[in-house]
């Protein structure tokens, strides 16, 4: 089973991009989520939000067109789309906490069967760690998607009964997109929605630390 091909980080991003509704206001976190902007379906427009006070971020700036007063949350110079706006950091977080943001996509270290998220600190890691905007975003986004690999580099499940790592938020995750599956977090538990090509729901269950609910034949993950 470990030899079966899994999705790349880019493919995880590509699959997660399909979860964004046309016209949505969206925040993308560090890591895999940040790749999603490259895979938006052509027929939809979404408005990207940045915690440092931008709504309507466009693509990254090309060499020569960078303005270092116009950067995203990862400090990378970006462009704007027509109709973009600037505001201060309190308003930026008010948008996420106040439930105005339609979708947020974050990376994750662990997600529990109740939708608890750990994504800011690995126990025993060096240094102070840092929370940034993740807790505000986790608490307030209407829909929270987590993009991550299904297991750690050592093969341990990242979807677990109870998070062992420091928490970002309780019962905040709605959808999990991994390199093996798409999973919906519902009050009744983790509902498997799609599975990666070449994998069976039973394969994925073996690499998952919590019970996955399989209600019907599970379709292959789609990319369009």
């Amino acid at each position: 089973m470990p030899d079966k091909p899994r999705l790349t980080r880019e493919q995880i991003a590509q699959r997660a991009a399909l979860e964004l509704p046309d016209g949505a206001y969206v925040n993308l976190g560090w890591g895999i989520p940040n790749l999603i902007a490259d895979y938006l379906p052509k027929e939809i427009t979404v408005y990207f939000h940045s915690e440092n006070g931008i709504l309507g971020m466009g693509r990254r700036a090309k060499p020569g067109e960078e303005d270092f007063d116009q950067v995203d949350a990862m400090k990378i110079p970006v462009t704007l789309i027509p109709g973009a706006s600037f505001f201060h950091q309190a308003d930026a977080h008010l948008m996420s906490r106040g439930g105005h943001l339609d979708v947020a996509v974050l990376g994750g270290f662990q997600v529990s069967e109740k939708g608890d998220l750990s994504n800011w600190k690995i126990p025993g890691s060096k240094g102070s760690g840092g929370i940034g905007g993740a807790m505000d975003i986790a608490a307030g986004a209407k829909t929270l998607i987590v993009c991550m690999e299904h297991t750690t580099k050592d093969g341990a499940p990242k979807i677990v009964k109870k998070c062992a790592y420091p928490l970002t938020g309780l019962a905040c995750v709605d959808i999990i997109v991994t390199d093996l599956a798409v999973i919906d977090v519902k009050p009744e538990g983790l509902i498997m929605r799609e599975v990666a090509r070449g994998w069976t729901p039973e394969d994925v269950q073996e690499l998952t630390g919590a019970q996955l609910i399989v209600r019907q034949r599970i379709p292959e993950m789609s990319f369009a």
Partner: protein
Amino acid sequence: MKQKIYSSTDAVVADIPDGAQIMFGGFGGAGFPNNLIHALARKGTKNITAISNNCGTREGELGLMFKNNQIKHVIASFPGPHANYFQERFAAKEVTLELVPQGILCERMRAAGAGLQGFYTTVGVGTEVAEGKEERFLEGKRCILEMPIHADYALIKAQQADELGNLTYRLAARNFNPIMAMAAKTTIAEVEEIVPAGTINPEHVMTPAIFVHRIVQAKGLRYAG
């Protein structure tokens, strides 16, 4: 008219005493009061409690203050991947850290500026951030009580000031600056340009002059990377 314009960055920070609680604006390399930070480094103020989103980029931004061991305690949301000098001091227990979720950091400062004695929020419930905080059930949700963050000084960066202290900011260099301007007893703005009163269209003023106590003109200093 009370004169708010100072002749130099050294003069504008000259009275900041040891032990002061100071807010520093800036995020992602944009909107940092780097000239004021350099002046404070030259002055050598010690035992500072710093409030800032991050903890410097190598020697840049607050990095210089940590390198010089001028800060004893910091309240921040995200020290950052290149906060080398902070991490060294933190590992050596020469500086203590309170980590605060970024939006809550904003709102705690805003509460201070707004004359509010704290607020309840769902952010951080059940996490390390909630430890030791009062918890209540409000509107059907578990919430924790967050208290205001005050400061003696706010060091901020703006684009333009008029002689009265009305400010504008450039692009995303606004970030924490307007919030900190409201939360401190004395707000010192480093600006690219000072213009006569009436030059900035009143509709375009982003921080009204009432929040700004001192202004100094200094050309932008920026740290790459």
